[in-house]
């Protein structure tokens, strides 16, 4: 069921060049849209496709587009969010590195749909070499008449630019991204007004993830209805999954949504199982912000049904026994890994990345990091475990943007499912220091 739509031809030598990409059917969607469809037609196809935002939130892309305000005489902007920074996620990088024209093609068609004449790709500063790849590809697109004035004689003009960030996770949040693109600190804005009304330079703006924009290409080529046939239920289409951790074959995979988690972890086409013949201890299926699942809830739900790679199935059981598809950052832990240590690294990440604007997040993420640091290094107390839950409650829902929630949820989930391992660090301070590993769970709880 491995199905390449976004990554089609990623193995063709030279696919990063305009000529090879074009020879393999590239830029057909631009021809189709600009010559035979109105902008509204393109929006309708995206609505029909059921495409959901691939950056992590899963909000329907067509609906997001329909919110865009269109006041007379005011420019509108499409911004591509290439600030991929969620730990465990490296899919957009793969797509941009391998097939930069796929993103550019998607940007042209999407900009046409939204009536944007200048669009920006905001890319994380660390991906500077990909910025070079994109700019080279953009220059080729200009040279071939797919960017610039009067594209393909349609009367539609588009300038496409790339702007780098400077190493701030928060700029993946859309209003922080806009602030950053305006040359400011990446402090998220209060909403409303939403970017669809007041975004870049106060103008109506849509911010979409790289993968969402790339998905517009097959949607326009084949039609929204055809796209919606791929996948399962409301999880339409394919999804790029970034697989990392203790796997035989980590990497980026394009999957048709609806395959089982079991097939994804153990299947020959995918990750081929846990590395070094070890057993599965836990998995974070959607990037560091989503709840961790212990082995018995990874491949099966609490009800005992097969867990599937869909938005719905991964969330089944709510926070008690489920998780989220999120960005598709699929992190796998083998039996030797320490959950406390991992949770600490994530807490440290969020403390490092909090923009500092809201006190509950700025202070809370720092406290969580300190307490987890203590626990991990055998200096914690049993009360510390409850203290973490307390701090969590004070962050959750009390901040301008979701970074605070993103920091709080994984800690809560780790304690919910692996409390005995946190306690073990308190009761076995010396042993927890001798090695990197956490509590080795009884074999029966491993898969």
């Amino acid at each position, binding site marked *: 069921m491995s199905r390449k739509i976004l990554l089609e031809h990623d193995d063709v030598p030279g696919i990063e060049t305009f000529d090879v990409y074009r020879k393999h059917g590239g830029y057909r969607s631009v021809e189709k849209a600009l010559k035979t469809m109105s902008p509204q037609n393109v929006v309708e196809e995206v609505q029909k496709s059921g495409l959901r935002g691939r950056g992590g939130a899963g909000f329907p892309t067509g609906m997001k587009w329909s919110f865009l305000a269109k006041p007379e005489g005011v420019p509108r902007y499409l911004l591509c969010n290439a600030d991929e920074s969620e730990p465990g996620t490296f899919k957009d990088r793969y797509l941009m590195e391998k097939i930069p024209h796929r993103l550019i093609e998607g940007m042209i068609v999407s900009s046409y749909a939204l009536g944007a004449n200048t669009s920006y790709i905001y890319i994380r500063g660390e991906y500077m070499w990909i910025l070079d790849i994109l700019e080279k590809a953009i220059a080729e697109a200009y040279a071939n008449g797919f960017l610039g004035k009067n594209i393909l004689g349609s009367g539609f003009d588009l300038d496409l630019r790339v702007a780098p*960030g400077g190493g701030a996770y928060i700029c993946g949040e859309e209003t922080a991204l806009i602030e950053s693109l305006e040359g400011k600190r990446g402090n998220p804005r209060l909403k409303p007004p939403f970017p669809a009304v007041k975004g870049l330079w106060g103008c109506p703006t849509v911010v979409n993830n790289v993968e969402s924009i790339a998905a517009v290409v097959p949607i326009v080529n084949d039609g929204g209805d055809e796209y919606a046939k791929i996948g399962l239920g409301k999880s339409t289409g394919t999804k790029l999954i970034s697989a990392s951790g203790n796997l035989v074959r980590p990497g980026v995979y394009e999957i048709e949504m609806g395959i089982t988690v079991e097939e994804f972890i153990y299947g020959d086409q995918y990750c081929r199982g846990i590395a070094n013949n070890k057993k599965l201890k836990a998995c974070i299926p959607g990037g560091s912000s989503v709840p961790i699942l212990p082995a018995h809830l990874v491949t099966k739900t609490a009800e005992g049904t097969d867990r599937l790679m869909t938005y719905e199935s991964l969330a089944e059981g709510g926070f008690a026994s489920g998780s989220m598809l999120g960005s598709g950052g699929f992190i796998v832990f083998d039996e030797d890994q320490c959950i406390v240590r991992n949770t600490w690294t994530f807490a440290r990440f969020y403390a490092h990345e909090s923009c500092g604007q809201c006190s509950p997040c700025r202070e809370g993420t720092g406290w969580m990091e300190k307490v987890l640091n203590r626990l991990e290094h055998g200096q914690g107390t049993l009360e510390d475990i409850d203290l973490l839950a307390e701090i969590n409650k004070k962050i959750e829902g009390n901040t301008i943007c979701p970074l605070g929630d993103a920091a709080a949820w994984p800690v809560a989930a780790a304690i919910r499912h692996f409390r005995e391992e946190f306690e073990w660090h308190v009761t076995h301070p010396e042993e927890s220091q001798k090695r990197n590993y956490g509590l080795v769970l009884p074999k029966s709880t491993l898969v």
Partner: protein
Amino acid sequence: MSLKIIHQERQEFSAERMAEVQALIAQYPEGKHKSALMRILHMAEEDFGGWLSVETMNYVAEILNIQAIEVYEVATFYTMFNLEPTGKYVFEVCRTGPCMLVGSDNIIAYLEEKLEVKMGGTTADGMFTLKTAECLGACGYGPMLQCGKQYHEHLTKDRIDEIIASYRSGVVPKEIAR
């Protein structure tokens, strides 16, 4: 990060680089040229020794015709900008969850031992600065480190030896194609 006042003799962009900077500024609508700030800071860092002195930031403020404080607040917010001198090559080793799961702790320890300097420090010969970094988006290819525009992935002790030897001889090591 707070702003440390470290001075450096004022330097200016070459005529060629200045043309690049002006072209960049011209990409933005009238009055929105501040959007070019971050990219110009990256360029300044590249051209002026790998870090941003107060003099450099003031110079960038002049180019963009904005207040110096507007540059300082951006330079101190984004962690990629170095506000003090570094070694010739800066190794930023990712240590977040996914890299930790595949052994970044060992890589950090080995680098510190091999280069005889702790994370955050610079080798006595000024060649290497070691730093830890939070997730760099290479989770499936860890452990890894970034040096300038180069990602070095699938690190092992042997690979680190090769990379260091290569930089010492002035050659940016090639990465294995995926």
